[in-house]
């Protein structure tokens, strides 16, 4: 078994050898480490992307907008990911961002995951029938775990989710009532001696 440290170092060096700057390569190393730690096929996808990159062209999207249409080729997932991470505080205001075509979308995921941590909000990523929920960089939930991720994501959508409860108020109330059964009724004398109790609050 390869250690995560080996995975990070090798991914970083391979990215540099594929023409990315050292700074970007460091980002790739961290990203592939994250994917493999979450049991996604990071190494496989990175390898295939770098092989593809030798013969095919990909577009670099540096400044991300609400709707992003490729001119001719799919977006490079690495440059797109780094741009997304760098611009996340502005993108947070837009809330929903669309991309017409992203190459190797699995490689874009860790950047979304890290962005989710930066703003402290969950991020939802969807293309075709494939869905991913990025949970503050703690985990990634998906309906695609055991299947190969497609090499291209068309009409991809990234939604920044507001921090709302994940349950109905009624469910919460019901559970809270149950939790109250661990409380003890306080006597009047105990109430008088509790913190803040006194003759006057205007002293």
């Amino acid at each position, binding site marked *: 078994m390869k*250690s995560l*440290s*080996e995975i990070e170092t090798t991914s970083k060096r391979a990215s540099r050898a594929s023409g990315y*700057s*050292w*700074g*970007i390569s460091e980002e790739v190393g961290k990203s592939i480490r994250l994917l493999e730690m979450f049991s996604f096929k990071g190494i496989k996808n990175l390898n295939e992307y770098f092989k593809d990159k030798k013969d095919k062209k990909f577009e670099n999207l*540096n400044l991300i907008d609400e709707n992003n249409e490729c001119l001719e080729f799919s977006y490079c997932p690495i440059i797109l990911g780094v741009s997304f991470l*760098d*611009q996340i505080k502005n993108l947070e205001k837009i809330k929903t961002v669309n991309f017409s075509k992203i190459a190797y979308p699995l490689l874009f995921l860790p950047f979304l995951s890290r962005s989710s941590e930066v703003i402290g909000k969950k991020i939802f990523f969807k293309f075709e029938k494939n869905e991913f929920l990025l949970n503050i960089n703690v985990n990634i939930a998906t309906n695609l775990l055991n299947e190969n991720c497609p090499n291209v994501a068309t009409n991809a959508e990234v939604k920044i989710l507001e921090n709302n409860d994940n349950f109905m108020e009624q469910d919460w109330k019901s559970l809270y009532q149950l939790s109250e059964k661990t409380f003890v009724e306080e006597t009047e004398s105990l109430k008088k001696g509790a913190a803040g109790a006194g003759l006057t609050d205007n002293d």
Partner: protein
Amino acid sequence: MRVELRDPNIIMKLSRLGSFHQSKLSFLRSFLDEFKDWEYNRDLFNLDSGGYGVAIYSFKKNKRVYSLVCFANKIDDNDRSDRVIATKWDAAFTLHDGVPSKKDIERLKNEVPRQEVGRLSYKELTLSRANKSVRVFNHVVENLSKGIQPDLNLLEKVGYLYRTTAVYGSGKFGLADRFRIKNRTEINGPFRLEMMLVYLVRQFTFDQVNHVAKHKNPKSAVNLDPKICRNLGIGNSTGLGMAPFIVNHPTLLNNWVLSREIALKKIREIENVNSKDKDLFKKCVKDSLKNITSWNSESEFQIKKINSLLINVKRFLEFLENQLDFKSPYPFNQIYSWLEKETCEETIEYIVSMMMEPFDEIVQPLIKNMSSDEERYFRIPTERTVLELKNILKQRYPEILKIDFENKSNLRNFWFISKNKEEPRYADRFEEEGAELEQPLAIARDIKRLNDQLNSCKDDLTIDRFLMNNSDLRHVVRRAFIIEKFPYAEIQDNTISENVVPIDMLRLKLSFFGALKFDPRSDKWLRICMFQGAPLPNELKDYNQHWVYC
């Protein structure tokens, strides 16, 4: 009285860092302190008459066990090499997490002796190999087998029976990643498991030499005297592999140096020093003279440093005896001022290390701060501005921004990874090929480039926009924001200059390991000794904390 921390622009110069010495903060000393009440055992010692076979040593406490698995192999004299390009060694070791099963031992037997080309698992924590000092080992065997102890002069000259040529950890070759074990309190200090490996290897070398002598002459052989064992350590040959580590781990470097600086500051701020602490400090300085006089090196560079150290420490002792009144306020601040005025970098740092000896209450809490959660500082704060970044560079890199990189001598060298051994190397970019594959270790040059580029941008431009057009500078942008928070994280020198002495970088790291007797063999590698004078495993329950100077 409030004493300021020493200026990072002075302390982080390579010549100063290359003058650092071991101290109570050093990892091998804090390792001994942490594991002193663990149960030590030799669990297996299955060597043949020539000393070849398998041995296992362990430290155990409650349900936690760390086991050193040793494989001693017969090798041809022609195959023995300390260079990293070697493929065979007298012995190979791994530290296994727990008690190894028979199946584990069989697996390790096939992998550990192969070192870099073998594969370890998450159950192994560190990996190493070592070669005999054949001259000393054979001499000791010969004498012990005749029933006599070896020649102490010879042992003193060398200082060890074996020297390691590499110690690996943290995920290399399949070893466990740091994150798997980072919550264990007993290893809450850098390189603690590497130190454990070296310490147990030292014991193996004594057991092996006794075993071979006994088989050579069962009737008359004696064991090596424990006093002699105590004065032997483990040698180590260290090359450039270590140098990039301190550049690649800036927050860790900061935490090491900052701990040292805080200790010094707090000691200088002690107004009244009691006589017990005063006496201990004086005793350490006096006793340490023998460490200097027994420090052998053939390097002219080092001989000069040792001679000057000896002269200055003697002068310092005179100052202590005849001029300094320890009853006057802030005696250690007076000492430090005298050292700065009267001596050299080597002596200053030598005495600074010794100042810590009496003050456990200052040093112990700092040891816990010497690790770093590096991931926390990886993100670039892209919402900040060019002006803010310019100010960081101005404040943190004042000397580096003055370097003229148009001058060839200032960018003479480049760091690269050798294809043969995947190890860092250093070469002249104008004479050797491969500079286009340079590693990102020319921090001074790249910071200067960043500064030039920032000067051509508007001050209110945010960093995310700056990076869109300057991806090639991303690694130093990240670095500058780290350095902003960690003043001792950066070497304040040009690591690619014609004049750089790479062994200064090695010595810095080795001093924090706790190495003694640095012996440069060129400007690119050196030999050291670890654990020389340290208590033996069966003495750990009650040992003299100041053993380095005794």
